[in-house]
């Protein structure tokens, strides 16, 4: 039996063994508990729990607001990345560093800060109240929190691709008579598209599971502004572990599908741009 070339470096068994052991006890075994616990519910019981009107309303809000927030972030995140890569203006370095704030700022802090801004008596809320626009304590508040959380995902996936763009492409396009907008639309945007979609999907995935920044500003009105993670908390507080777990299964299955999609998108980005990262 021929073996591949002998391993020169030591530590394969030790490091892989430790990796698998640690991964199993921290992630895989506890996660499997969700599926095993749910199996104790019958299928029809499971279906009843995850399709009660209140839970259905929470899916609509969680997925709807997350999609909308990710779409808004795709537009403004692309614009912000563009401005940071293409233009020179004062304060640019500081802004570039602060874009990652939502990654670093604890979600509870973001939640109470946004509430302070957008509550009817808050800095921005009091400006909007005379116009009869209400942001905090309703679905628009959820949207605001999810925009905050998702912004860096789009900026940070698009930015490196923009930085690596060859100026030759745009020069060729211009010399062939294309307007600047046409060049953007037909030359630059197709190159950015995989990264933009990846950023969109990452922002969406994060928003669906987000809890801390949302619950303060949402108002948590049943059937109106309850997000799906809050439904899990509500069930837990009623000691309805099976119910909480059933909703968790729905969220997990959805996250796994999204994770697969994101992996596919990232592979596409690497192929499309020849980046190896």
């Amino acid at each position, binding site marked *: 039996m021929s073996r591949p070339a002998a391993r020169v470096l030591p530590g394969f068994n030790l490091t892989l063994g430790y990796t698998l052991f640690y991964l199993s006890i921290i992630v895989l075994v*506890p996660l499997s508990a969700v599926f095993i616990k749910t199996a104790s519910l019958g299928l029809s019981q499971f279906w009843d729990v995850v399709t009660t009107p209140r839970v259905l309303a929470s899916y609509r809000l969680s997925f709807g607001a997350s999609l909308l927030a990710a779409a808004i972030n795709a537009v403004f995140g692309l614009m912000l990345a563009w401005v940071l890569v293409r233009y020179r203006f004062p304060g640019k370095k500081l802004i570039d560093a602060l874009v990652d704030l939502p990654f670093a700022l604890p*979600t509870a802090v973001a939640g109470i800060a946004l509430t302070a801004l957008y509550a009817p008596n808050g800095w921005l809320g009091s400006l909007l109240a005379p116009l009869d626009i209400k942001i905090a304590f309703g679905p628009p508040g959820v949207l605001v929190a999810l925009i905050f959380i998702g912004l860096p995902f789009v900026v940070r996936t698009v930015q490196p691709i923009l930085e690596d763009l060859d100026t030759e492409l745009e020069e060729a396009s211009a010399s062939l008579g294309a307007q600047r907008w046409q060049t953007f639309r037909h030359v630059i945007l197709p190159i950015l598209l995989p990264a933009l979609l990846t950023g969109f999907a990452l922002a969406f995935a994060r928003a*669906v599971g987000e809890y801390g920044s949302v619950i303060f500003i949402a108002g948590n009105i049943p059937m109106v502004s309850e997000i799906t993670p809050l439904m899990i908390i509500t069930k837990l507080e009623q000691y309805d572990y099976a119910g909480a777990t059933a909703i968790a299964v729905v969220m997990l299955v959805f996250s796994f599908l999204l994770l697969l999609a994101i992996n596919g998108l990232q592979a596409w980005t690497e192929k499309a741009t020849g980046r190896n990262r």
Partner: protein
Amino acid sequence: MAGATSLHAAADPAVRFESRSATREAPWVKWTLIAVSLAFFALFLLLPLIAVFVEALRKGWDAYIAALVEPDALSAIRLTLLAAAISVPLNLSFGVAAAWAIAKFDFRGKHLLITLIDLPFSVSPVVAGLIYVLVFGAQGWFGPWLQAHDLKVIFAVPGIVLATVFVTFPFIARELIPLMQAQGKEEEEAAVVLGANGWQTFRYVTLPNIKWGLLYGVILCNARAMGEFGAVSVVSGHIRGLTNTLPLHVEILYNEYQFAAAFAVASLLALLALVTLAVKTWIEHQATQSGDASQ
């Protein structure tokens, strides 16, 4: 001369685009785009950050300091530091081991393993807390056994640490894996052939190459460990002075309408976030510099 230009370009890639007529826009387009993106940035990122500090100082410095030195706040600070002090080293050793196995060796299922390591990022924090309740809670798998031995995991410190470890699990590994993969294994193999043992090879060959990536991962892991809310909230039980971390303490104060105190504690976490971003930017700068030097 060419060297100076490229160094300048590395400092700001915009020069490359702004200096060519084919890759720049009319000034009104440029400034409109800058104005719109900065307005968006100010509205959604800058203003909330400013709000934290303004609200924290609304009742003056004395009230601010009082909110931070109050016993429950101090015990929340202690617990937050403890959770980070346990979870960061655990995930650091895991990250290094996983990156070594994945980057330096070939084996089947490598892609699956990388995907599984990323898994905690796509799990909602609330679900992350729930899974430990299902395993260690009173009605969970080990619940009866733990009770019989008078041990508490859920609604106690171990549960908080576990939930924190889970949500910060991938940070260091996902920073190191692509970095060590890109560096290959020739240098380590040379060291081993020259007689270095495994530890010496790691310490003197690998570590200097990955130190910035390692630090970067540690900084981000630490920020998340100290700031986690959802997962910790599920397993904590919110016992004042015992199982409250800083973010949970913020929530309690806020729900009791002690807004100035809530924002005072929140401002500590916001400062932590700003320090994290500053260190992160510094590391990125250092990494680019040393990258330039080695080329």
